[in-house]
């Protein structure tokens, strides 16, 4: 079972590395933010798997904190960045200028 977990951890990290292309290419701020949220979720999964592979249960706390704080980042994005983007551009298309 531990072997399977180790391979899964590797795959999840590979997932993050491939997903970095979305951060690089965008095209919009929302794509980049969602990619970052996906990485948070992957990192939580990696930490949970590592907690059982290494039998270190303190890693569960790290995963807990990471999962909780991922919400803060996305809420800040929606309120402070995304709404600022939407507000002045009501006559144009609703796309954003932040690239």
């Amino acid at each position, binding site marked *: 079972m*531990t*072997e399977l977990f*180790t*391979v899964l*951890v*590797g795959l999840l*990290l*590979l997932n*993050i*590395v491939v997903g*970095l292309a979305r*951060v*690089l290419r*965008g095209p919009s*701020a929302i794509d*980049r*933010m969602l*990619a*970052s949220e996906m*990485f*948070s979720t992957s*990192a939580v999964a*990696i*930490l949970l798997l*590592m907690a059982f592979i290494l039998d*270190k249960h*303190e*890693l569960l*706390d*790290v995963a*807990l*904190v*990471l999962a*909780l*704080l*991922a*919400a*803060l*980042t996305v*809420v*800040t*994005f*929606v*309120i*402070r*960045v*995304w*709404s*600022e*983007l*939407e*507000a*002045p551009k009501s006559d144009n298309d609703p796309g954003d*200028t*932040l*690239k």
Partner: protein
Amino acid sequence: MGGVVLVFDVLLAAALIWLAWQATHTPGLFRAVISFIIFGLLMALAWVRLEAPDIALAEAAIGAGATGALLLSALGRLAVTDEAGTPWQERADLTFWIPAGLALLGLLTLAAWYLPSPGLGQEVQASLPDSGVQNPVTAVLLNFRAFDTLLEIGVLLLATIAIWSLGPMPMPGAQAIISPVLPALGRILFPMFALVSIYLLWRGSHAPGGAFSAGAVIGAGGILSILAGARPWLTGSAYGPWRVLLSLGLSAMLAVALGVIVLGQPFFAYPTHLAGTIVLLLELAAGLSIAMSLVALYLAGQPPTHWDGESLRQ
């Protein structure tokens, strides 16, 4: 399985270097900020791989959480049209910074090479029973090297005072998207932040956790409730002297440091039978101060003492 572990480490290191490059060199501030947030996330994983779960916890709480919120809010306050930005492409800069960076890397490698190889881990383990806690990191932070922590808490207080002295806090503009989800999210999530924070504070005495991560988590909860429209009541006289909490950590540590002299101990040397209680109380005081400082830093200025409207965004 060694192969998979090696691939994992190489991928992690390569992604970290690439993200660091992106965060400093990408055109467009939003991309740089996102790269920095992801950098913090992967850095937490790197600390786990380096078998430093305490630092991983702090990095997860401060790097991925509070710093992300700070940077994104700062970005929202800047002019939004920064598509092109100014990528750092002058060759003159690169011809200086690449050799300078390599030289710094060489010096750091040299310094790491000459570190005393067993370190002080053995000594800390040997005197752990006298510290009053079972977690060696907490023992070092709040007992053996409590003086360093005193200075760190002092720096946080100083930063808050410096930011407040810059002027009143900028009021966020009217929200373009009014969502009913947000106040509800703040109301449901804040108790979770508080619960996890108390748990981490309690865990700190025998496992990774402690004042810094607990304070960062509850501080992040405070930032969340401010985002959800809560009033930052730090200076409001109607809400009681909350701002005293900002200096609670520093004053509690100073009181303990000088108080033990009265008991006939040297400066900052706790009596062994009281050490556990003292460390727990100091963690509580420091955690509260750290949380309040994070919220105060996030406000980016002194909050007004009186509020006209019912809520921050009317």
